């Protein structure tokens, strides 16, 4: 609608009441200070046709007013969260601990917190954090959507301090921010969705060991052994919020949320992988250190203590990709996620964490990652009827007019993803046969870490 307004065409947007603030904020961010909105109490999704009709009829006066009068609906700058212009803030208490508590309470009120206590980003701590990278504090790493915040090295350092990072973690965070700002990631789509998109960070190369990023036991879980994983992943979320303005309930309209949005960072267990590391597969040298970011929706376990045959293992794995409750399952039938501003689109790709035990089963029988992906693609199939249960027929028609014959053959089995390369594989974990399958939102971006 913003693009039509910019072309001088009056618009009215149907918006559910819970999304009004988000719509106005988005319009403001995208260059239109006010927006004519016709409000309805609920989203149109999942509603009966008659209920939609009633909601529309009850609010038609707003449509007519919106098309004939200047829009009145406007947000004040900063509404929904707080911005400050003071370069340094002071918080007082009877001692430093109480001052820290006051700061944390204030940051919670201002929406700057992820809910856990934050480390105070004092000038001294930020200065120390900045020593972790050779870039200048005011270097702009990226412009982060949806708020178009300038991600300077200094702002990233501030959020890194708040997350509990050490200076040596900063280059990984900077690279992760470079990854999420790539047009192909289409950050606006993932940051503002009703879905639980979480940036999964995979670290490869020598830096993973140097920083102690856990790749073994409980690598994606809590604990002292995953300290680096936890704080780096947390810092990226704080950056998305405080630099990109991805504030929950303001621009991040995630219906339920997910614990993986707090922090999701891991290193590949390259030593126990029988295959080339993930980053080498993507064209990097083994001695290069890289960060990969892949937005994911959620995860399920790949548990199998029994199988000694690669065929059996992959058969179980393929069932994880056949979950109709996940957005990417059969998403290709509707087309590809696309950002029209940059002319980019992306397939829906899944991220598979294979544990060393399972990797060895595959390797014993000569299966490389390409073979596993091909077998996943071959086996993870569902009927057209099932894949279309939660899909819009009109979108299917637009994306694939050549496949409309499927309506007459609804039991036809189709792959749940577009191609075999929609499965990414990294080896992570310790002993025992348990991996993880992450349903992906779009594809990954990998970049070399600059120090």
């Amino acid at each position: 609608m913003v693009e039509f307004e910019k072309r001088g065409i009056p618009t009215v947007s149907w918006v559910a009441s819970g999304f009004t603030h988000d719509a106005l904020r988005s319009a403001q961010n995208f260059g239109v200070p006010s927006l004519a909105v016709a409000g309805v109490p609920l989203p149109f999704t999942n509603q009966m046709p008659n209920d939609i009709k009633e909601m529309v009829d009850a609010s038609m006066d707003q449509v007519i007013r919106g098309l004939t009068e200047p829009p009145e609906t406007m947000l004040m700058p900063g509404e929904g969260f707080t911005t400050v212009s003071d370069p340094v803030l002071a918080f007082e208490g009877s001692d430093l601990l109480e001052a820290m508590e006051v700061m944390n309470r204030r940051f919670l009120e201002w929406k700057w917190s992820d809910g856990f206590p934050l480390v105070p980003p004092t000038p001294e701590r930020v200065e120390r954090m900045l020593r972790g990278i050779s870039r200048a504090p005011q270097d702009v790493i990226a412009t982060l959507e949806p708020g178009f915040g300038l991600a300077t090295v200094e702002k990233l350092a501030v959020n890194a301090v708040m997350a509990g990072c050490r200076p040596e973690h900063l280059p990984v965070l900077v690279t992760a921010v470079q990854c999420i700002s790539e047009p192909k990631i289409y950050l606006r789509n993932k940051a503002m969705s009703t879905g639980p998109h979480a940036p999964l960070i995979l670290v490869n190369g020598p830096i993973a060991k140097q920083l102690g990023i856990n790749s073994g036991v409980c690598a994606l879980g809590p604990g002292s052994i995953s300290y680096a994983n936890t704080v780096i992943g947390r810092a990226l979320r704080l950056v998305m919020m405080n630099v990109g303005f991805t504030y929950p309930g303001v621009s991040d309209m995630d219906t339920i949320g997910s614990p993986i949005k707090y922090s999701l960072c891991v290193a590949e267990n390259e030593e126990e992988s029988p295959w080339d590391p993930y980053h080498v597969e993507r064209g990097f040298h083994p001695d290069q250190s890289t960060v990969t970011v892949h937005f994911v929706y959620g995860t399920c376990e790949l548990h199998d203590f029994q199988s000694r045959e690669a065929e059996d293992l992959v058969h179980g794995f393929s069932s994880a990709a056949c979950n109709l409750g996940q957005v990417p399952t059969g998403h290709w039938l509707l087309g590809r996620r696309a950002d029209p501003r940059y002319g980019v689109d992306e397939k829906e790709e899944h991220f598979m964490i294979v544990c060393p035990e399972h990797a060895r089963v595959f390797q014993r029988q000569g299966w490389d990652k390409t073979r596993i992906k091909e077998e996943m693609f071959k086996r993870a199939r569902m009927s057209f009827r099932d894949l279309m249960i939660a899909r819009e027929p009109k979108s299917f028609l637009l994306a694939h007019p050549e496949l409309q014959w499927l309506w007459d053959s609804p039991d036809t089995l189709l792959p749940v993803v577009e191609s075999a390369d929609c499965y990414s594989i990294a080896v992570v974990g310790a002993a025992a046969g348990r991996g993880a399958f992450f349903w992906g939102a779009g594809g990954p971006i990998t970049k070399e870490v600059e120090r």
Partner: protein
Amino acid sequence: MKAGGDQALEQTAHFLGQRFPSAEFRYYVGSVGANMRHATPEDADRVARECDAVVGTTGD
């Protein structure tokens, strides 16, 4: 387009058509994307050329 959005727009056109009988209505869907269809700059130019006003919805 998310489910239900198209029905909301059809009802909008129906209502406006009764109130403004000479009005013409055209339906557009962005030419890229999946269930979320997005208008390309060319799509937006076309709509701006062909229409005097736009009513839209994502569905939520």
